[in-house]
């Protein structure tokens, strides 16, 4: 069994009477890229801040690298890096100086600075102050800062926020590379499931402070997989035809719709067989449930991202 990096059990956080986190339980194992998804205000950043010890929580327990208690958690956090919400940088300093500050905070040397600047494509920034950086450059530098202490567990809150499409792709590649090359475990958040699905291996869906669903990449693929959508007024006759064609993986959705999950390339053949069997076909074609629709379904259609 893989090592458990983070185990949050029934973590709740109250702001007055508002429950920002309501008994959230999440377990992240080594090597996972855990994507935390939820609309704005769902509790993603609050959960991340709680993990990092930046805010207190009212009930529950947090275990990091098998450690609990104030001192144990404090020690464990030295193996972690974070970039929560906006990139936290010193605008008057250069990229190199920002990295030097974070290296000093972490009590590590400056050896990694040049390689990190190279990794994040910031090598040529020279004496340019961070206040003159583009948002993409700042995001990359913020991640470089989190990497300076060579963490085992990385927490990234909406790392693609505000980036252009090229920047989003670049950020995604960086995250995947870090996991592959440095064996890191990553917890990242986004309000876009489609965006997260490109990198994450596991997902947790937060809604109104509650973790309403956890699923793996495979489960998500299954939930949102491609299928043939058949609309007919004669569902029973259509089912007989599908059975005759040897199709087993299908689902009758309601009185008119059938979703067929196999032989996706045989739409024409299935259609022909249905017509020959005098089934009244209103519509047939391949489709895929959109990730965002899946998310809306789960959250009861209150997606506000």
């Amino acid at each position, binding site marked *: 069994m893989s090592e458990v990096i983070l185990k949050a059990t029934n973590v709740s956080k109250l702001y007055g009477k508002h429950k920002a986190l309501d008994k959230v339980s999440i377990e992240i194992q080594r090597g996972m890229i855990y994507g935390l998804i939820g609309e704005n205000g769902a509790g993603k950043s609050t959960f991340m*801040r709680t993990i990092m010890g930046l805010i207190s929580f009212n009930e529950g327990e947090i275990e990091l690298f098998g450690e609990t208690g104030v001192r144990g958690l404090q020690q464990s956090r030295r193996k972690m890096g974070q970039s929560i919400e906006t990139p936290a940088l010193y605008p008057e300093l250069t990229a190199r100086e920002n990295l030097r500050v974070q290296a000093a905070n972490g009590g590590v040397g400056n050896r990694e600075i040049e390689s990190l600047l190279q990794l994040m494509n910031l090598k040529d920034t020279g004496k340019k102050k961070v206040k003159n950086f583009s948002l993409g450059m700042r995001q990359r530098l913020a991640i470089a800062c989190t990497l300076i202490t060579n963490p085992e567990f990385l927490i990234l809150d909406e790392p693609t926020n505000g980036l252009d499409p090229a920047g989003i792709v670049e950020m995604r590649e960086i995250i995947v590379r870090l996991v592959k090359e440095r064996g890191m475990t990553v917890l990242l958040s986004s309000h876009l499931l489609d965006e997260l699905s490109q990198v994450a291996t596991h997902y947790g869906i937060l809604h109104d402070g509650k973790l309403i669903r956890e699923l793996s990449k495979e489960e998500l693929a299954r939930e949102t997989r491609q299928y043939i959508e058949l609309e007919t007024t004669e569902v029973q006759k259509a089912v007989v035809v599908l059975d005759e064609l040897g199709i087993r993986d299908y689902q009758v959705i309601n009185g008119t719709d059938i979703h067929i999950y196999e032989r996706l390339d045989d739409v024409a053949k299935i259609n022909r067989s249905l017509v020959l069997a005098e089934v009244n076909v209103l519509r047939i074609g391949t489709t895929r449930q959109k990730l965002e629709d899946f998310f809306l379904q789960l959250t009861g259609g209150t997606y506000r991202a």
Partner: protein
Amino acid sequence: MLNLLTAEKIKLIRSKKLWIVLSIFALFPIYQVANSRLAVHYGTELNQAVDTVINGATGVLMIEKNGLTILLVMSAFISFFIGEEFQHGTIRNALSLGRSRTQYYLSKLVVASSLTLVGVTLLTLIGMIGYSMVYGFGEVAGIRDYVPFAIKSFSTLYLLILANVSIYVMISFLTNSSGSSLIWSFLYTIGTGFGAGIFQQTEHFKHITFWFTESFLFYSNFAHPADIARFPEMALVSLITILLTSAIGMVKFNSTDIK
């Protein structure tokens, strides 16, 4: 703690704020020497009771002469120095690395105290040199052993300033923002400084004003024997203030949610 101080050093050296503060402390005494010379207060002679510094020897009292300026400059510096960490979110970088909040608080207090020491030393030295050049080194009336007096008065004055620095650090950690910290620090300085002047007119409340270090700083003559005798009391009030405000600041900061 040393790691945090190293990080502070990198930040400070590149910070414009540091150089502005040091420039003020370096240029202010030069301006005052020139102003004393050109304005020729009270005929041709300066009056120690009013002007505080009248020659090189009394230059050791430059902190007393510039008490309000030092406090306002330091309160502004500390408000930005700490408040910006909250506003830029950079405070998360150190704290999320498992650094204790008490150590973080102390590192800020150490930096603010050290800068204050460098600043007031610069101010005093330049003041002493400047006034010596214009008015001669001279003496402090009634003081026979100058060196012990100079050490005691400078140390006491520094402690009084340090007590306020400690209050400003506490305010910055409580308010979590440069703007609010600036306003509250100014209000505190002006309030306890000039408010004390009003309460000192009354017999009942006069002694209460000496719970605040500003009262000593603004309403004492550090060259006067009666006030020199109160140096231990001043040091005690300063130390209590530093301990009390640091304890309150650390306890509150430890329970603060960092946005």
